[in-house]
């Protein structure tokens, strides 16, 4: 049995993790690969920490267990740290370099690690942080950060660029296809050697 390629997409409710996972799922259909996924719905979407599991080539259950994800795509640097234990040995993290500061930091004085501290704690794994917000704005809208992240992660995904592009144009509102494709290309280009 061929193993699935397991991707965990994490972020803060409202950042578009579900659209990103839909794009990956759709790209699997384009590529003719089986796929399973699991999502966070309901209350956690009110600004809570959210996770989406995608098993590319998966034929069994949708859940990814700690220590087994091939790739973590994180829309928030702090969330990359929170979910890093899902990464398998030798796996990759692609993350946004920005942190949405948890409200508890302001209301209860909760300690939030700084960007440098987070990067240091992630120093022992293959982790690349990109300026997703800046690239999304460059593409035309801050809302396209999720697609920028997919572009950056595309080098690590077992899916062709054509399949991903096709999936984007199928999943996003027709009027925004151009902007999102631009966001994808900018994300992809920023990690090109």
């Amino acid at each position, binding site marked *: 049995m061929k193993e699935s390629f397991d991707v965990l997409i994490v972020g803060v409710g409202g950042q578009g993790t579900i659209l990103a996972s839909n794009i990956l799922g759709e790209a699997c259909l384009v590529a003719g690969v*089986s796929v*399973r996924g699991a999502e966070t719905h*309901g209350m956690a979407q009110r600004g*809570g*920490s959210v996770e989406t599991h995608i098993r590319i080539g998966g034929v069994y259950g949708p859940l990814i267990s700690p220590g087994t994800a091939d790739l973590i795509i994180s829309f928030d640097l702090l969330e990359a*740290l929170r979910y890093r234990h899902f990464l398998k040995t030798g796996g990759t993290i692609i993350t946004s370099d920005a942190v949405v500061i948890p*409200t*508890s930091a302001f209301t209860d004085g*909760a300690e939030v690690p700084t960007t440098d501290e987070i990067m240091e704690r992630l120093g022992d794994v293959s982790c690349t942080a990109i300026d997703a917000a800046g690239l999304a704005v460059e593409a035309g809208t801050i809302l396209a950060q999720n697609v920028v992240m997919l572009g950056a992660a595309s080098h690590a995904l077992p899916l062709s660029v054509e399949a991903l592009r096709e999936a984007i144009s199928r999943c996003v509102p027709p009027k925004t296809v151009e902007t999102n494709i631009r966001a994808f290309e900018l994300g992809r280009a920023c990690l090109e050697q």
Partner: protein
Amino acid sequence: MNIRYMLGNEVIAQACLEAEIDFASGYPGTPSSEVIDYLRHQKDRDFYVEWSVNEKVAFENALAAAWTGIRSLVTMKHVGLNVAADPLLTSAYTGVTGGFVILSADDPYAHSSQNEQDSRRYALFAKIPCLDPASVREAHSMMRAAFAISEEVGLPVLFRPTTRICHSKSDVEPDVPGTGHRIGSFERNPQQYVVIPKHTRVLHKKLNEKQPAIAEMFVDRGFNTAEVRGTTAIISGGIAASYAEELISDDVSFAKIGAYPIDAAWLKAFVDQHETVLVIEELSPVIEEAVRMAATTTVVHGKMDGHLPFEGELSPAAVAQAMTSAGFAPTKTYPVVPPEEGIPARPPLLCAGCGHRAVFYAMKKVFKDGIFPSDIGCYTLGIQLGMVDTTICMGASITVGSGIAHSGEMRPVVCTIGDSTFLHTGIQGLLNAVYNGANMTVVILDNRITAMTGHQPNPNTGVTATGVASPPVSIEAICRSVGAPWVETVSSYDLTGLMQALQTAKDREGVKVIVARQPCVIAARREGIRRKPYVVDPEICTGCGLCVKFGCPAIEFHDGKAVITSLCSGCSVCADICPAGAIHKGGKQ
């Protein structure tokens, strides 16, 4: 081929269309809500869909529809089935003529629920067939078959997906929606539909007589399958079966339970062929109890001897661990990696500009020593503000409040309940509190919608599930009509007005009702309502941090000054809180 990447609940809705559904009702509840949401928004098939005011109402509506011979569905979350348990247990006696499917979505791990009850127990209790899909694809085929099974055996069928079915996705090949339509026609038959003692005794016997054939049918039709491959076996059901299938080795036998009741003779024949059996299922040991009953010399492992937990949800790693502990080598092992420590939690929060936050703030100011029973909705998040002292089930804020008020407890009781929850099961509690002379304040948090489950309309919204305008009910009129002598309405954004109303309530005896009204900000934004955001003038801000303590996620604090971010929805409440007057309307929309 038309393969799509679909959400479990969408697949379930799609299967209903393919099976020629004629009638659907339900009450929203995570993880079940999207089924009716898909059905009410789709355009492929024309049939009756309603959001009902509670699960009992939804159930009885759908049951009666099935009595007229049409195919009907009722949906709810697991705890909703408690509300509908009264008609459920007797509907098994009356049976149905049209296919009747009860969708009760379980939530192992209580991702979004107050308990982890197992709906399979209800099906066994009621003696009705239960379908328990192991995957999104199976949810599709089982839901398609469910209506016909119901018609064949003349009983309601309980369809029990769990969160990891409802909110999982899979590549699925949907079929086209069915084109046949049935028209309801009620045939008078008191022996079946009037459950007076004389009739019900006969009906109970008939129900019991149906059981063996149903159990056999589930084996014959492949809902329950078994494959003998060795001297040890795994028996599993629900989503756990898909975890087990990934980890089982080729020389271990496998039986999969997709439907209940389980045929005891068939199960015994399978168990008897093995020396050791491990049962893997989430929540209650329903399969395990049947296996233990069937086993004579076979050693049975499962929850009851400690290899698996009775609570929470399973995962591939948890199943692998159970297999190892019971002496079954899994084909994969999972490392035990602890999560990082020292990361601030990121719980869900009331939205920026949510009216509930302002009401809680005012309550805290006026009732410093209050007791605050609450209810189920977004406002349960008020626990983070210290304003939720109890939550047990839908509608219980008012009743718990009146119970405490009558107990001799001297501190003032102020309970909170949302509009949808009030209409669900709050009204009776209010009627009872007024009639029996409780001394308490009831704050109805009226945001005109059922917000937490995804913004479904209710009788307070002014539209039905299918978007047809319907006059919104008057919550104030309901409160007055059940006898509440003092009912006051305030905008949730009007801090001064809220505090005045709460103070007046505090000074009065009896049941006082305050309706705090302001549309949910998310729903309002969807309706196109935009308010100018607020800004902090750094010259005036003294850095006292009072606005920050309010807890709006749009307010941050940097370098000794408050800052309002782009999340601001312009509710204006923080401007009223700031003692320096540093916060004012500004910026672009």
